[in-house]
């Protein structure tokens, strides 16, 4: 497989069609990053596509020694932030149009369990509460938590996406977990493990 750097070189030389290789390579990850923020498939698709187009527009300014994926995710995260800003400025009646998928439920797959319907309902409710709690986190904490815990990015890469130090990411992660623990306590039947 051709490296990202080689594809970028080819695109910058004028072979625009080769940009499709990068889109194919990272579309799933970019979509998932956007989806973990907005929880809506259509919005996630549009925002991640915007990220690819903006990355193309600024490709000449991309530092070749950096990781293209980290840079792309940073652009997608910024698109999501702008999306929330625009949404916050809209009247409430209009902002309702872009609710999360599945009856406002969750960005998570249901658990594969053989439990009772009651268990499944409780599980679904917990998933919804977790999703909402994540969305209510301060933006920097939300970004760190989403990229690290939901996307599985190493802390170092999260620091690259957020353009901050590793220690700062760890602080955001700690505070985010603390807030989630407090918010989720009422929804855990067996209580939060102590």
């Amino acid at each position, binding site marked *: 497989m051709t490296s990202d750097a080689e594809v970028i070189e080819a695109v910058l030389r004028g072979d625009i069609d080769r940009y*499709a290789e990068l*889109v194919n390579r990272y579309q799933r990850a970019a979509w998932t990053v956007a*989806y973990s923020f907005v929880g809506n498939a259509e919005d996630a698709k549009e925002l991640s596509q915007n990220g690819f187009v903006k990355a*193309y527009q600024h490709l000449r300014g991309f530092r070749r020694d950096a990781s293209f994926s980290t840079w792309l995710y940073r652009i997608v995260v910024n698109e999501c932030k702008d999306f929330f800003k625009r949404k916050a400025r809209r009247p409430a009646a209009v902002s309702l149009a872009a609710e999360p998928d599945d009856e406002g439920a969750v*960005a998570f797959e249901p658990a594969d369990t053989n439990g009772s319907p009651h268990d499944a309902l409780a599980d679904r409710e*917990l998933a919804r509460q977790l999703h909402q709690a994540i969305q209510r986190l301060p933006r920097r904490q939300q970004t760190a938590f989403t990229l690290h815990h939901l996307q599985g990015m190493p802390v170092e890469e999260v620091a690259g996406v957020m353009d901050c130090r590793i220690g700062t990411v760890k602080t955001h992660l700690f505070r985010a977990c603390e807030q989630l623990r407090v918010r989720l306590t009422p929804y855990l039947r067996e209580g939060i493990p102590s």
Partner: protein
Amino acid sequence: MITDFLAWLRGWLGRHPLKTPPPESASYTAEVMARVRALSKPAPAFRWLAQPRWVLAVGTVAAAWALLVTVGRSPQRLAESVGELDDEAWLEETLALLHEAGEDVEMPVEDDAADQWLLDLDTLDDEDLASS
């Protein structure tokens, strides 16, 4: 306490992974590439004219220019424009106007009288303009 919660959360997220995008890879890429190719094409000439702000600005300037041209056609402005003509043309034009008005002026023969004759002509011209 927080480490226990974190362990529980990681376990829970392991059982409930994030939803994955719908399988529409080809159309996703095609849509992005269509936008990328559109960016790569040179912008059409006078595309800026399509912007409402520019159309308004151009319209305002055109209206202002038309206004200046129309208002500028006052008798005073016409007299000034006559003054901009070279002496010979001005003389011919003035004589023609005077002839039309039935106020012919005799052209003096001696050169020393030329200044006085021109002064008379200026006075006559001013009076004519003032009365119009």
